[in-house]
């Protein structure tokens, strides 16, 4: 048993009798592996090595990358992790998502519900993370999210490659009758000391008969040949030739088409309806009433998608009242009320905040209120899923971040066993936390009416925009004490927001044992690498029937803005340079990666150098999802219109597995974040989302896209995430840059409410 496992067991025993009793049994179960999903339908000529590798004489080497590919390059990087240890070139392999299985559960994602800063390596933090790891195995959720895929796969995928390599070597040693230690491997071959070679594909059948080694040595990162270097993206050729790789592209024999029209008031149902006008549309076959825990409304089945869309429009429905205030002003009172109540949980409490404010000179107290609206994901591919229900079994084809959840909710709806649902996961046309659950559920709800034929259910853009799992609106009150010329030492923050985890799991998996305190509410606010003498970060939880969910960087998408916008105000009040002030507060030993990020950022962005008239720079830093990211934004103002000129980004994820893909994720996160900051908001009137399409929920386009320069560091002791981490600092960096040049302090997104963009 390795060192990590021993420490883990000891720390469990320290957690109390009840926990220890449960875990003594639990630990044995934890060590037992789930069955290998590849063994079930393996073609005769292929052999499976671990759940991640298939090798066949004809079919070659296939790597299973069981995470959703939505543009973050995860299939490429997970395959590279296997290929590095297996000793095969990236051009010698095929990469597939594979069929879902419990073996592919995501350990790392659950670490994020642990209430400890990323840099806390204390006993309690380590033990809690380890317990989450064990818990994740029992929940066995195959999920992609929380920038956790590379963290989760970092060792797992390399171990799979190494184990397969060793067993292939053992097969070659038997065939050649030589000692296995004399053999080398390279480019998909085992090499004999005399120079003879055997292809893995020739050895696979023999190797499959041997025992897979249970422990393998992983290579030092200094010896990596593939990892740490840019790799061409898997499926790039398919992407530039228009190959059918997305869920919406699925074509099956005898397929018919559908769409949905769900209640625009979340949680409400149809009071009255007339489907005759819909059925009168040429090509419309059926209108089906859908009533689920997620939404109620109608499905339209037709000969083609266009007819289904026309049918959905023609359907006459009177919807019930929304179980939440009908408009933005009413919704705001929910937030004000939540802030007026005592906090539900507090993080990073230090010193005596109340006494510090009681003793403070009024002139030294800075107070501010920050706010963000609901946001839609607005993925380029609207929600879609195809389902076929035949002989009591359901098959789903869809791009999803949670195939296990899709199978569960669909099975529950149809009253069948989860085992009778097969989910084929396609490439995702963007997701950002959106794709899971309802597309598959609604397709499953329509499937019986399709009478055994597959039905492809595509949502219109309007339906997609108005039935999201929105990034929650959030409201924060912040106050701090600032002495002239000194870094602040006292901060007090209260945030009102609904729990996204309760939203997500409450809809789809209410039995999931979630902690009552959702760490995501304070993600990007608490646990930041700053030293405060007196601090308190308080979450004011609130419930609303408005569907909220995970949007790229989740809590970080608003807390990054709140925290770093406010820090800029504090630096201004203190009369300090905002980068110098931050570095001076990143003063604990374990904050070192943060200091190095900010120092590098100061250098590469030419911070402090004189700018042309009308130009200004702003900075933001957020540690989120295990990566330390600082960004500087430069804006230029011409005739009152603001243009974002350039963004500098310095990121430290500990280990960079692919510098090109990692940098792309930073750029992508920055444009995503800046898009939310400049002009995006989901607002309510009459209980309905007002926005419909890209004309009223737009994003940065080519003409507005700034130059972006990314620098990567590797000082952090543990590997961190990518997909989310570029988002949080971009929003305050823009606000702070606009302040630097206009003097206008922006405390509410979208900024186009207060300023105008070119």
């Amino acid at each position: 048993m390795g060192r990590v496992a021993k420490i883990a067991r000891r720390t469990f025993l320290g957690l109390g009798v009840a926990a220890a009793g449960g875990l003594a049994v639990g630990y044995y179960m934890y060590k037992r592996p789930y069955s290998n999903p590849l063994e079930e339908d393996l073609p005769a000529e292929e052999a499976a090595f671990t759940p991640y590798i298939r090798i066949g004489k004809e079919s070659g080497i296939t790597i299973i990358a069981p995470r959703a590919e939505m543009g973050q390059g995860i299939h490429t990087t997970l395959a590279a992790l296997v290929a590095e240890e297996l000793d095969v070139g990236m051009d010698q392999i095929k990469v597939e998502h594979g069929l879902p299985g419990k073996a592919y559960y995501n350990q790392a994602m659950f670490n994020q519900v642990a209430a400890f800063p990323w840099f806390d390596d204390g006993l309690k933090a380590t033990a809690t993370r380890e317990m989450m790891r064990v818990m994740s195995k029992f929940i066995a959720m195959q999920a992609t999210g929380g920038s956790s895929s590379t963290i989760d796969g970092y060792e797992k995928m390399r171990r799979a490659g190494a184990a397969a390599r060793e067993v292939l070597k053992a097969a070659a040693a038997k065939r050649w009758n030589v000692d296995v230690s004399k053999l080398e491997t390279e480019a998909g071959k085992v090499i004999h000391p005399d120079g003879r070679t055997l292809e893995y594909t020739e050895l696979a059948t023999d190797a499959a008969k041997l025992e897979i080694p249970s422990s393998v040595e992983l290579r030092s990162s200094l010896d990596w040949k593939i990892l740490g270097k840019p790799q061409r993206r898997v499926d790039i050729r398919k992407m530039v030739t228009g190959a059918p790789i997305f869920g919406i592209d699925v074509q099956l024999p005898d397929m018919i088409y559908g769409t949905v029209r769900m209640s625009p008031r979340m949680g409400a149902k149809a009071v009255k309806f007339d489907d005759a006008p819909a059925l009168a549309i040429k090509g419309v076959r059926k209108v089906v009433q859908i009533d689920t825990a997620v939404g109620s409304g109608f499905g339209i089945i037709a000969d083609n998608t266009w007819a289904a869309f026309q049918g959905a429009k023609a359907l006459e429905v009177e919807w019930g009242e929304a179980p939440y205030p009908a408009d933005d002003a009413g919704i705001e009172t929910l937030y004000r009320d939540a802030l007026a109540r005592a906090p539900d949980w507090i993080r990073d409490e230090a010193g005596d905040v109340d006494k510090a404010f009681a003793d403070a000179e009024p002139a030294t107290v800075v107070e501010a209120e920050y706010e963000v609206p609901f946001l839609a994901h607005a993925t380029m591919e609207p929600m879609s899923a195809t389902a076929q229900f035949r002989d009591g079994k359901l098959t789903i084809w869809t791009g999803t971040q949670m195939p296990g959840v899709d199978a569960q909710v669909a099975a529950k709806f149809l009253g069948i066993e989860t085992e009778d649902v097969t989910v084929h996961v396609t490439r995702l046309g963007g997701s950002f936390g959106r794709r899971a659950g309802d597309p598959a559920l609604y397709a499953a709800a329509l499937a019986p009416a399709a009478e055994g034929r597959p039905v492809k259910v595509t949502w219109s853009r309007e339906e997609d925009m108005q039935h999201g799992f929105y990034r929650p609106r959030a409201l924060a009150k912040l106050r701090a004490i600032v002495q002239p010329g000194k870094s602040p030492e006292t901060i007090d923050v209260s945030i009102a927001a609904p729990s996204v985890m309760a939203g997500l799991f409450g809809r789809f998996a209410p039995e999931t044992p979630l902690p009552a305190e959702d760490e995501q509410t304070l993600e990007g606010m608490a646990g930041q690498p700053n030293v405060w003498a007196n601090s308190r970060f308080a979450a004011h939880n609130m419930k609303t029937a408005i569907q909220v969910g995970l949007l790229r960087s989740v809590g970080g998408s608003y807390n990054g803005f709140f925290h770093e916008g406010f820090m800029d105000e504090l630096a201004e009040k203190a009369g300090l340079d905002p980068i110098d002030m931050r570095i001076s507060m990143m003063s604990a030993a374990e904050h070192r990666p943060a200091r190095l990020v900010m120092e590098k950022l100061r250098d590469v962005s030419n911070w402090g150098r004189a700018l042309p008239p009308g130009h200004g720079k702003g900075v933001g830093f957020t540690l989120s999802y295990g990566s330390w990211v600082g960004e500087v934004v430069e804006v230029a103002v011409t005739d009152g219109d603001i243009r974002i000129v350039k963004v500098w980004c310095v990121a430290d994820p500990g280990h960079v597995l692919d510098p090109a893909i990692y940098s792309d994720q930073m750029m992508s996160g920055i444009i995503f974040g800046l898009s939310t900051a400049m002009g995006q908001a989901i607002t309510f009137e009459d209980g309905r989302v007002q926005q419909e399409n890209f004309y009223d929920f737009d994003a940065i386009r080519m003409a507005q896209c700034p130059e972006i320069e990314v620098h990567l560091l590797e000082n952090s002791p543990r590997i961190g995430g990518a997909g989310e981490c570029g988002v949080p600092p971009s929003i305050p960096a823009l606000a702070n840059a606009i302040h630097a040049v206009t003097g206008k302090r922006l405390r509410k997104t979208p900024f186009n409410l207060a300023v105008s963009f070119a």
Partner: protein
Amino acid sequence: MVQLTINGVARDIDVDPETPLLWVLREQAGLTGTKFGCGIAQCGACTVHIDGVATRSCAMPVSAIDAAQEIVTIEGLSPEGSHPVQQAWLALDVPQCGYCQAGMIMAATALLNTTPNPTDDDINAEITNICRCGTYNRVRAAIKLAAANSSAAQKG
């Protein structure tokens, strides 16, 4: 019955003539490379060429298209992705999720047909497609690379 010429092949398609070209391409012609994004010509994911002009197919009823007009989709742009624009996309690893990229490539190709060496302003004005992954800077670089490669090839 509607007559259309798609990727050089004349087809008779049995469809309501008010159906947008996008859906006819995807469902009746089985060419799913052209993508549905917004349905109102806002995002550009559905961009195809009609007689060489970049056209948003989601808002173009097939009744408005003449049988003689040449419709080209991403599938018909080149055999095996050999078009200089696709080659530039491959060389610079442009796509992330890839969903908008067929539309981007079709828009870029149409731009280069009329403006072989586009300036940044030309690119800003003509490439108005949305990419939620934010690949714009690579798209811009790939358009310039394709332009450079094409002009080098012409100079021989």
